[in-house]
């Protein structure tokens, strides 16, 4: 992954336990009990990030009232991108107040990038004219015109978030994650859990389902238009696909006995992988929910569970959770997307175990995140790099309990459930800088799933 302009340097490399881990097959695991040289550690890149300034946005033809609001949303998005030192909300006395750009002023303030914006028009016809300036070269690097719906429209903020992602991509060449939502499960006072959504910046908390029951494990269709999740139908675990715009629902048929849990979309957008748990042939299956066909079994028990599948972005591999080495030592393994022999990704060492669970494969960048028990009883977010077969794990959390990580579309931010002294909440960590923020605090939340970049609604 490129991270524009930063020099890569190891800020800290805390080696927690050399030889604790091993990426080995089950057979090999029985012959040796650790692989030397595997480390569990923390490597953050340099904290030096290019400074990006926002010149106060201006308005024309009735857009003036909206300009500060658009600027504030973009400023916060860029800060949450964790790629820049953001300078915004600057007083007009400092910036001169005009629409013109004084590169010497911004150079003097230490900015590498400058964003200027003008909101034109009013009502339902608004356009944001935006420029990204390279201050060092005193020139406009990129320019774009972005249509904005009415600020009363539910798509208004998402349209502004798409502009933020465009700025990130212009400046770094990497995808952003502002135009996205997080689906998750939340407990209500009646003991039921429904699926909810929240925007990547913590706004627009909204309920999706209203079942008098438990709904868990939401997963996003690659289009961002549908989710699938597990709920109960007549008391039995079933997987339901739901169109977020229309509310139309479709139940995945249950042809085999057992509970249908932990769905995940294949990048083709047609195939759902899931676990059939507790039946006569437990394991990971795939089913084409678009064409209603082609049930296939990728792995099978009996006597153990394979669950929580997650596809690699090229659709060739599946990472999943298994307890085939023993009931108290679940591990993360990787197998081909058609099934076949699996390799451990989490640092299993025979006879010593460890608890590793809830894998999620990053949409870009080749990382797989999961959580694990580092010391007995406390769980932390860990990231394995597929490039070295998971032999080097990075630990991203250091306090409380942390579970169920899910990748943002930029492949560098993770949302997860954190348990802190103040309670449970959804937290977001940047795997590059380690910076963590609270997305939604003091709620009984579970199993967050970060959406892909969301398209403009039609």
């Amino acid at each position: 992954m490129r991270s524009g302009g930063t020099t890569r340097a190891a800020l800290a490399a805390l080696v927690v336990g050399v030889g604790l881990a091993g990426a080995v097959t089950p057979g090999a695991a029985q012959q040796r009990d650790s692989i030397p040289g595997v480390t569990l550690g923390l490597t953050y890149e340099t904290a030096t990030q290019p400074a990006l300034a926002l010149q106060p946005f201006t308005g024309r033809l009735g857009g003036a009232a909206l300009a500060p609001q658009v600027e504030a949303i973009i400023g916060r998005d860029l800060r949450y991108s964790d790629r820049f030192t953001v300078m915004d909300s600057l007083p007009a006395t400092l910036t001169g107040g005009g629409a013109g750009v004084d590169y010497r002023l911004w150079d003097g303030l230490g900015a590498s990038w400058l964003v200027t914006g003008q909101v034109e028009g009013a009502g339902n016809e608004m356009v944001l004219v935006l420029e990204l300036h390279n201050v060092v070269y005193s020139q406009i690097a990129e320019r774009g015109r972005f249509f904005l719906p009415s600020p009363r429209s539910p798509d208004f903020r998402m349209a502004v978030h798409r502009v933020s992602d465009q700025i990130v991509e212009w400046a770094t060449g990497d995808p952003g994650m502002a135009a996205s939502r997080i689906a998750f499960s939340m407990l209500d006072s009646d003991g039921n859990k429904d699926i909810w959504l929240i925007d990547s910046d913590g706004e627009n908390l909204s309920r999706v389902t209203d079942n008098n029951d438990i709904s868990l494990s939401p997963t996003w269709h690659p289009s961002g238009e549908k989710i699938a999740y597990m709920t109960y139908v007549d008391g039995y675990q079933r997987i339901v696909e739901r169109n977020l715009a229309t509310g139309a629902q479709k139940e995945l048929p249950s042809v085999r006995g057992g509970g249908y849990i932990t769905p995940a979309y294949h990048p083709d957008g047609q195939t759902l992988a899931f676990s059939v748990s507790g039946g006569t042939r437990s394991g990971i299956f795939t089913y084409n929910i678009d064409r209603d066909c082609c049930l296939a079994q990728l792995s099978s028990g009996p006597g153990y569970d394979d669950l929580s599948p997650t596809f690699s972005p090229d659709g060739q591999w599946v990472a999943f959770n298994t307890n085939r080495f023993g009931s108290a030592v679940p591990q993360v393994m990787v197998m081909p997307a058609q099934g076949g022999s699996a390799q451990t990704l989490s640092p299993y060492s025979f006879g010593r175990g460890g608890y590793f669970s809830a894998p999620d494969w990053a949409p870009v960048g080749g990382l797989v995140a999961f959580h694990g028990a580092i010391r007995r009883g406390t769980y932390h977010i860990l990231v394995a790099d597929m490039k070295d077969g998971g032999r080097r794990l990075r630990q991203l959390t250091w306090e409380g309990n942390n579970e169920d990580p899910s990748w943002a579309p930029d492949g560098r931010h993770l949302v997860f459930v954190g348990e802190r002294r103040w309670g449970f909440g959804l937290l977001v960590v940047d795997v590059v800088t380690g910076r963590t923020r609270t997305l939604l605090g003091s709620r009984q939340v579970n199993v967050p799933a970060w959406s892909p970049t969301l398209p403009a609604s039609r």
Partner: protein
Amino acid sequence: MIVRRFIVPVLAATLVVGACKKDPPPPPAPPMVDQDSLRAYQDSVRRAQEAEAERQRQADMERQREAERLRAMAAVRATLEEAIYFDYDESQLRADAQDLLRRKVDILRASPQVQLRIEGHADERGSTEYNLALGNRRAESVRQFLTGFGLSAARFNITSYGEERPQVRASNESAWARNRRAEFAITAGANAINSPN
């Protein structure tokens, strides 16, 4: 007839008192008391009273028997629905769980119409999704145990609520021990539960 016995002297006294006032009609002839029919009458009354008492006694016994039957049935049903508990992260059946399941087997054999849904549950430790699978595994090991006694697998459906429906909402060992369990819901034949004896 019995009433007239007492009325006769009263009537006589009335006649004496009122004799001087006007001309009384001639007194009726005193009734003849038949000792045999009196005895027969008294016997029949006694028999009727005894029969009524017996009927009451029978009804009471019937009521008691019914209450006992219901109590026994409730106890049988409670045994059938009683939860079993598991050790941490285990789906193996503990000895106490096996004892209880054997008592359920006896009831299920005597009650062939009864069907059960077995619900596995987990404590809050471990991941949400892993615990869903763990609950299923617990329910499945209960089903395996029951069908191992020759009971038809078709009588049991399994499901899991993972850590989502705790018996005790607290984070300590005694709460966790109560939450690692399998529950039993009667899905058919609830009115056809028979005691094994």
